[in-house]
């Protein structure tokens, strides 16, 4: 992403919009500028701000006049008055930033938008996590901090040593050169993204040890990690996971509940054709 200096009027509206705080007014040119190393190509500024398409010279003249008289501005806070934010063509490895930061871009590896994971949201038809198993979603960079793959790899390597199984149908796993060791391809390690989810699966009784390891590893990374743990319920709708989590002192107030209303509706022939 870049800001066109010929159009920008330095109104500053886009500064707080950026989730990474990567936009600032460059005093040497008095225009908004993006710190490209911190920008994660989430497109929040470009897509989220409404646009007015005003003439920049006209807007600057009004702003200077008002500034001279010390008038207080009170504009709409989510508008770019001159449509100055311009997306750039992204090449490898920078394109990875957008894939993991812009929720409107579906992940090639899963075909899913957002962070590209299905977890137990579709477990009623996929059975990814079965009875007696626990699925972990370890999300790096959320909320609103961002993460570099170097930090993610530090954790995936350590988790691999524990013998956990990385979900194959996951965008981060698809970037691993050696999933058995949790090794992520080297050319993207310095790329910063808004957030990425690592999915692993273990037996339910391993939940305490895995969570403990994640807690220990989280002290070694320069970002925030949000953790979710899932399981399949029994026929009565009960689960053993909650008691395990609460016994270990983890909060369990909020979560997602799959209601089990999904079923196979595609005819086998249509499914064969598609595959």
């Amino acid at each position, binding site marked *: 992403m870049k800001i066109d200096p010929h159009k920008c009027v330095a109104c500053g509206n886009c500064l*707080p919009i950026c*989730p990474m705080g990567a936009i600032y007014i460059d005093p040497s040119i008095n225009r908004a500028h993006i710190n490209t190393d911190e920008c994660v190509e989430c497109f*929040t500024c470009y*897509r*989220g701000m*409404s*646009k*007015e*398409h005003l003439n920049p010279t006209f807007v600057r003249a009004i702003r200077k006049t008002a500034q001279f008289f010390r008038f207080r501005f*009170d504009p709409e*806070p*989510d508008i770019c008055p001159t449509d100055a934010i311009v997306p750039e063509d992204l090449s490898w490895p920078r394109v990875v930033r957008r894939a993991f930061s812009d*929720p409107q871009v579906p992940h090639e590896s899963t075909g899913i*938008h*957002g*962070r590209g994971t299905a977890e*137990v*949201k579709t477990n*009623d*038809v996929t059975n990814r996590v079965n009875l007696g198993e626990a699925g972990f*979603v370890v*999300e790096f960079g*959320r*909320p*609103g*901090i961002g993460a570099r793959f170097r930090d993610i790899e530090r954790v995936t390597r350590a988790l691999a040593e524990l013998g956990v199984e990385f979900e194959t149908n996951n965008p981060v796993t698809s970037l691993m050169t050696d999933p058995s060791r949790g090794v992520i391809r080297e050319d993207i390690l310095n790329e910063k993204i*808004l*957030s990425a989810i690592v999915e692993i699966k273990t037996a339910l009784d391993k939940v305490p040890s895995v969570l403990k390891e994640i*807690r220990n590893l*989280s002290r070694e990374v*320069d*970002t*925030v990690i*949000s*953790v*979710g*743990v*899932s*399981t399949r*319920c029994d026929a009565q*709708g009960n*689960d053993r*996971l*909650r008691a395990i989590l609460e016994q270990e002192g983890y*909060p*369990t*107030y*909020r*979560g*997602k*509940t*799959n*209601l*089990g*209303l*999904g079923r*196979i*509706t*595609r*005819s086998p022939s249509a499914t064969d054709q598609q595959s």
Partner: protein
Amino acid sequence: MTNTLHRYSDHYACERIPNPEPVQDDYIVFAMSSRGINDDNLVEKYRTFLTLALKHEPVNIGDATKGGLIRPRQDMNPTAHWRREHGPDAEQVMAGIDGPTTVAAVFDNYQAMKDFVEELKAADLGISINISAPINEAQRCCRESDLSRHSVEYSVGFRGRVDKLPDATTLQLSTMCGHGMVSANFAKKMLEWVKENRRTPEEAARYMARFCICGVFNIARAERILSEARLMNR
């Protein structure tokens, strides 16, 4: 829709708060299909989901690929500063559905969520339906609707550099877009503007909602948080 899993409340404070207040105005129901399993007639299924949701007055609905009830516009003119339209546009959400996505409806009360779930059960759309809410409330809804929970996923909170996180009120606002499109700095700015009476809580909540790309930002809860923060000097 992991983006709805880690919505911040005092239950997830890094330093434990005794007896945190329950969140009673934030219930999300969402639908998701699986490729090759139940993604036939998908547009029709998703539109039925949203049509049923609208009967129960959701505070937001959304399509994860297009946006929610309130969206940014590319064709503004200067009169917007005085005459801006903040109204929701459900038709736009319905018309925009054109293929694989996730659709969601957000409610600010338990009863509306439960009534909607019961209608979904009767409609038997065949796609996966999830509730993202306090676990006990979701469990109660299943019990009262005669549904057996298939799977559950718990948010167990934040780890690592939590010192980089903003204050609790800002987090409550910004984490309502779990994709991170509502920045903490913008939430702080809106809090300040409400305190300064430059904007009402209703207006400030709508500015933030425009950035949420999948329509799960709870506008009613944001209004409440902003109103309380103004009075309680948060």
